[in-house]
């Protein structure tokens, strides 16, 4: 589904080699944790999947199509196939939980009836149905991240990309989020999770890819968190 072929990323501005000759493949329906210290290149790798960044060298294939072939106009369409979740949630404060999710559909030109039908469903999946009219600051951190996941899921994407989703959460909420991601994965969505959180990685008992200084250090199909 996603294939990295000799991918390197150099940020010329500060002469930083974020990634060096990465080769890896992720199959549909997989749950992959990407671990590594800060600056190991986890976020760079994720950003290239949703076409926010381009590799300096090498090629990334999504459903066998090279991403370098994507024209600027086609990028939004590609992104609808990928749900993205961040450490800082990136919710809109002035909008309610419902509006934060419906906004994603509106921006992509979905009709009103579909929005009224789909948004409550997705909020129910993440367990926020009764918080529909609450604003983000009325929700707990864990609930905010669930709302961000709901927004990421609304386009029924093939892949969920999560960049440190539990970075701002207490252990209990982190576990909740992991459970939710595992549930989503079970329903058939590929999940790519970049994290520092040892507990999450160990509990997931799924494939672990570790990066060190931009290089692929290990790729364990049923790994544990092994960053020192």
């Amino acid at each position, binding site marked *: 589904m996603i294939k990295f072929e000799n991918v390197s990323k150099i940020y010329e501005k500060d002469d930083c080699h974020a990634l060096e000759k990465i080769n890896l493949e992720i199959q549909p329906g997989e749950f992959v944790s990407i671990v590594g210290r800060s600056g190991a290149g986890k976020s760079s790798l994720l950003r290239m999947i*949703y076409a926010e960044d381009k590799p300096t060298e090498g090629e990334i294939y999504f459903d066998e199509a090279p991403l370098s072939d994507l024209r*600027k*106009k086609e990028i*939004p*369409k*590609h*992104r*609808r196939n990928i749900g*993205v979740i961040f450490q800082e949630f*990136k919710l*809109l404060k002035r909008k309610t939980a419902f509006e934060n999710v419906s*906004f*994603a559909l*509106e*921006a*992509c*030109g979905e*009709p*009103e009836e579909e929005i009224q039908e789909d948004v409550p469903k997705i909020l129910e999946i993440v367990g926020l149905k009764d918080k529909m009219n609450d604003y983000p600051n009325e929700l707990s951190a864990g609930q905010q991240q669930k709302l961000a996941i709901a*927004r990421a899921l*609304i*386009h029924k994407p093939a892949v969920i990309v999560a960049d440190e989703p539990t970075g701002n959460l207490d252990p209990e909420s982190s576990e909740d989020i992991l459970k939710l991601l595992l549930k989503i994965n079970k329903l058939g969505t590929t999940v790519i999770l970049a994290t520092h959180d040892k507990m999450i990685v160990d509990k997931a008992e799924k494939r672990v890819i570790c990066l060190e200084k931009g290089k692929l250090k290990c790729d364990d199909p049923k790994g544990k968190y092994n960053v020192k």
Partner: protein
Amino acid sequence: MFLTINRTFKEATKSISRNIWLTLATFLVIVLSLYFISIVYVATFSIKGVMNNIQDNLNVSVYFNSETTEAEIMEAKDFFSKNGDVKSIDYVSKEDALEDFKKYNASDSDIMQSLEEIGENPLWSYLSIKVHNVEKYSEIVQYIENSPQKEKISRINYTKTKEAINSLNGIVKMIERIGITLGSIFSLIAVIITFNTIRLTIYARKKEIEVMRLVGASNFYIRLPFVFEGLLYGLASAITSMILLFLTLRFLIPLVSKSISVENVMAFYLHNIWILIGIQVGLGIILGVCSSLIAIRKYLKI
């Protein structure tokens, strides 16, 4: 498509109402620049209209000595019409001149009474000469003064009108210059202010734009609200400026100047209302949308 336009338009109106002072400043500057440009347009055109009118009525009147016969005057007429600058020559006989004089002064009983007392026709026959180009009047006068016909001529009448034309020409040129300068300065300020407003809106909505990109909103959808914002500024300003212009012409002109007829200017305003609306709305939209597009290009990284 309709859904996109509807949603982005709503987004633009929200953004406009969110920061009312910024909106007001932007709006006022565009109104001012449009207002100046249209005032200049109306002023130059109405003065040009007045001038054309004056120029049409301009002529050199050549009066002949009383002993000159009609045949001699006709001979002089033939002679003058050979000059290339002459547009037309009308012969006005003593009788016609008297008729005209009576018609013109019919309401003035004093003049009519003294005319009767004189008993005979006191007026002279004359040739009324019009030229193609106003500037040529002095040359024509010289030509007549130096012609072999000069013996028969008693008087040539033209000087006053020439000065009037020169001063009007000067006024028109000055108004045009001031107007173009002020209009350009205000347009530039309008573009800078609108550009800045849109830039601030882009900053204020940075997070929203980021989320829109992440969820796969098309670039068109992300940009459209800002274009609409510029468009709305332009449109609202055009309408306001149109109303201001109307009020100025209707109420201010009679206070400031008695020499310009309000009816004439209003007639011009109403006659050209579609052109004026077109210019204002067109310019307003160009100012608003162009500023938006510059700001989007510079600050909206998609």
